[in-house]
């Protein structure tokens, strides 16, 4: 049986799920859904995922979508192994939920338009809306000022340990820094910069990047 992750390995949301599984030492099969050919919007795929998005996962017979629900599930299922990704007390758990929501509702809706307009559309020969990207970059800079204040107090977003709240930020931030030339946004924010260097150099994340680059279908710890 085991875990199957459906999506495109280069896509941000499936990468969150892969990272969580690798942190927890869980093997999985990656099943390609050709989103460039709009496979995720076809009836067959939408039987599984009614909103036609990636990722979708199957853990044996149990099926889920929404990457943040998926990572919460695996973090709870494998709470006894690997790093503690959910916090150790009720208060810590609440902080993890808080920063997960900040990522979902404030950070990513600002980051994604930058990645689409400055990177994804251009590499497909489509026009990117530079104005939209610039407006989002200004917003992102202000958001990162809040992150700077938090990360001056705690090593990671929800406390002094790496949790899901940090994990869900990584894939889109990598696109911002490595493909949209936005590393400079971190230059005047030393704590955000140090946080980014710490989270992006995690062995598990590096394994995800190698897996994606390899084009492999099966991951085993």
């Amino acid at each position, binding site marked *: 049986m085991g875990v199957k992750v459906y999506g495109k390995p280069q896509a941000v949301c499936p990468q969150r799920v892969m990272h969580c599984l690798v942190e927890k030492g869980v093997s999985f099969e990656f099943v390609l859904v050709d989103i460039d050919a709009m496979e995720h919007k076809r009836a067959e795929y939408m039987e599984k995922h009614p909103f036609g998005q990636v990722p979708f996962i199957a853990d044996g017979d149990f099926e889920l979508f929404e990457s943040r*629900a998926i990572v*919460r*599930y695996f973090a709870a299922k494998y709470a006894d192994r690997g790093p503690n990704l959910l916090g150790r007390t*009720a208060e810590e*758990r*609440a902080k993890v939920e808080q920063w997960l929501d900040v990522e979902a509702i*404030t950070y990513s809706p600002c980051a994604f338009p930058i990645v689409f307009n400055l990177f994804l559309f251009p590499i497909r020969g489509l026009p990117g809306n530079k104005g939209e990207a610039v407006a989002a970059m200004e917003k992102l800079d202000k958001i990162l000022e809040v992150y700077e204040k*938090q990360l001056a107090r705690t090593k990671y977003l929800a406390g002094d340990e790496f949790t899901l709240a940090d994990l869900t930020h990584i894939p889109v931030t990598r696109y911002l820094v490595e493909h949209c030339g936005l590393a400079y946004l971190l230059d005047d924010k030393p704590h955000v910069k140090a946080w980014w260097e710490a989270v992006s150099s995690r062995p598990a994340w590096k394994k995800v990047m190698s897996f994606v680059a390899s084009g492999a279908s099966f991951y085993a710890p």
Partner: protein
Amino acid sequence: MAVKVYGAATSTATVRVLLCLEEMGAEYELVPIDFFTGEHKSPPHLARNPFGQMPAFEDGDLILFESRAISRYVLRKYKSSGPDLLRDGSLEESAMVDVWLEVEAQQYDKAISSIYIETVIKPVFFGGVTDEKVVAESVEKLGKVLDVYEARLSKSKYLAGDFLSFADLSHIPYTQHIIASPHASLFESRLHVKAWWESLASRPAYKKVTAGVPTSK
């Protein structure tokens, strides 16, 4: 010691937290934050919610923001005195609650909030003009989301399964405004969605919290 919610009955995110506190019979104090004087952007409030939004929450030394995170904390803290709305005892049930909470925050909220912002917030709070094109697009978007909900609710009584959960309740704050508007037809034309809404709106916690929330009617 009673917990404190800093916000306003007119703030949909504040209502989300109040609903959870009422469902669990918790003792709390609502500390009003005045939107019109920009109190949510004042230093004391920014110290609680650094993004300058409502609500913020205080339980002793613990300060939280993000209404869904606050709500989850409240539902866990008072779990012995109210319904089991997160299903922490079951990996699969709690995962389904999380799925539909993500759908609420990502798919549902984006469409429905635009309708409310354009038709009520903008004209009433900012003296602005409703952008009918945005409203039309949002209504179409919400319709498509509600089609998925109709299919889902024809298979299970509530969103996460045959049990009521926080995923259902989290939809209440914006929905109550749209139900009181001409766009109520979006809900009334979909039988299972309609029944689902009526079930939520019949709850005592809903009636108590929304009694203090002005709608556009």
